[in-house]
């Protein structure tokens, strides 16, 4: 663009390099230690893994990279039927438990969305499962469901005539149901908490208008509350779905993926593949595959959330 005469030339102060660095480089100087650590613990392992996944690895010659074998590791991974069944199991658990958590969490938040004595304490007690160690949660349920003395097992299920000839973690269907139920118990409070925040922050005006227009409770909920809460719902789905795909701790303690492969999720499968069967090459390939799946889903959802709803 041509310079116009009226434009006053801006005086550019001459600075020494040091001063310029202080002005422009300062932010990066503050940032660099963190980025260095995150590159070291986040990117280096990933690159390392990609390189290894194309090589022949032998646990007897630990720490030495073997010959280049192309896609051999990936091929033998895809030949493993449990790989696909574990993907399916993981998806099943995630897509069953997360919607349940969402609906129950909303119902709870709706129930709590009024004033009552000791509300703060009640809310805190209710959300605690979400911040407890999954390992401790697994122990809790193991004790509650122990045969025959477990509190729930004896006082509820036996009374109902259940689990008299099958054990809960010994039958594929019940084991999977129990894992999902425990996940729901653990994470519904999270949904509840976020919905509470969402409901608490709803604007009053639209509701007054809806009341004036004679909208029914159901209409108000469907056309007003739900759309207003949709950013919250999307954030929670994003966080929880990604989390649910990583489920490991509770299953490791309760069933170790069994009986058979009924509750073997992708993380359990990867763990056993590497640390029980010591198939290091295939495990590297598997780690890369899990990573890529994660990045595809995560990247897509994240950019959608950020662009459309300006979340994060």
């Amino acid at each position, binding site marked *: 663009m041509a310079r116009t005469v009226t434009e006053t030339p801006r005086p550019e102060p001459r600075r020494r390099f040091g001063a310029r660095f202080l002005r422009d480089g300062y932010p990066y100087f503050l940032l660099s230690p963190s980025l260095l650590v995150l590159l070291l613990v986040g990117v280096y392992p990933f690159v390392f893994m990609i390189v290894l996944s194309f090589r022949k690895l032998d646990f007897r010659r630990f720490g030495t990279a073997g010959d280049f074998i192309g896609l051999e590791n990936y091929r033998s991974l895809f030949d493993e039927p449990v790989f696909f069944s574990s993907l399916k199991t993981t998806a099943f658990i995630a897509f069953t438990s997360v919607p349940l958590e969402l609906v129950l969490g909303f119902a709870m938040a709706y129930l709590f969305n009024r004033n009552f004595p000791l509300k703060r304490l009640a809310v805190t007690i209710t959300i605690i499962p979400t911040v407890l160690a*999954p390992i401790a949660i697994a122990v809790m349920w193991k004790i509650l469901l122990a045969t025959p003395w477990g509190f729930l097992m004896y006082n509820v299920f036996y009374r109902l005539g259940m689990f008299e000839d099958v054990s809960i973690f010994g039958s594929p269907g019940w084991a999977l149901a129990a894992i999902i139920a425990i996940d729901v118990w653990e994470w519904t409070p999270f949904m509840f*908490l976020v919905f509470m925040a969402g409901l608490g922050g709803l604007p009053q005006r639209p509701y007054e208008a809806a009341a004036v227009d004679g909208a029914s409770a159901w209409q108000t909920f469907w056309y007003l509350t739900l759309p207003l809460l949709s950013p919250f719902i999307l954030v929670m789905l994003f966080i929880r779905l990604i989390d649910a795909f*990583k489920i*490991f701790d509770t299953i490791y303690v309760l069933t170790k993926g069994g009986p058979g492969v009924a509750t073997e999720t992708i993380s359990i499968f990867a763990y056993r593949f590497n640390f029980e069967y010591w198939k290091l090459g295939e495990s590297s390939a598997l780690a890369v595959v899990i990573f890529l799946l994660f990045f595809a889903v995560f990247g897509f959802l994240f950019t959608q959330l950020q662009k459309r709803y300006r979340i994060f």
Partner: protein
Amino acid sequence: MTEPNSSPAFARVKAWGLGLLILVVVANSLFPYLWILISSVKPTNIMYATPTVWFFTPIADHYLSAFGDKGFGGNFVNSMVVSVSTTALAIVVGTPAAYSFARFRIVASDHIFLFILSTRMAPVISLAIPFYLIFASYGLLNTYLGLILAHLTFNLSFYIWILRGFFKEIPVELEETAMIDGYTRWQAFTRITLPLARSGIVAASIFCFIFSWNEFLFALILGGGDVKTLPVVIPSLINQRGVEWGEIAAIASVVILPILILVFLVQKHIVRGLTMGAVKG
């Protein structure tokens, strides 16, 4: 406008019904962790009794034998060392980064952010496998340093992410005024912004501690005999013969109790902490 159901009697029934429902919801969350605390002080001879024994004199035997004779006190120390060090490192390394993100224009900051958030949410198992191989060749397996580094993958990113939000809420004008009054940027940061962000820093640190304290998969894979944390002890006890449920309940209770206390300290920030700042709460 008269509704058929607006009589005072109906209102009372409704209030009681809702109260009862709330009670059920609270009890549903509370009972399992309360029950494990109860089990940890229950004498062994009534532990497995059916019907369930409700009233008994609590005993400390399970705690004494688990943390005394069996030496799980050492694992408690391991858990503490790892969680506290990870948190301290996150504070030292992460605070300047969070400040930088909140206050300056950073080239490609969106991409850097996406990267930071992705290290927080990345599947642990596919980081743990390469960590295991890398650590094996550098002698970092079964060391505090190794496990602390691994825990930084999720905690450092979490800390930066959350603290940036807290810093952003402090008006930049406060710093600018201070700098006009002759403060350097460093002084403005340490004397104005940092004190104002203190509650945020404390909350973020408590969350880091909780995440590290609860973490299992990295600890299982990377921490061997010398740096076994408390959560890692539990599965090995469950899968052996002649399980001592009282002792396991005692260990699990010790895993739970610090969290119960800390939750009350961070309850104001808990929504933000659990949603990574996406929801302010």
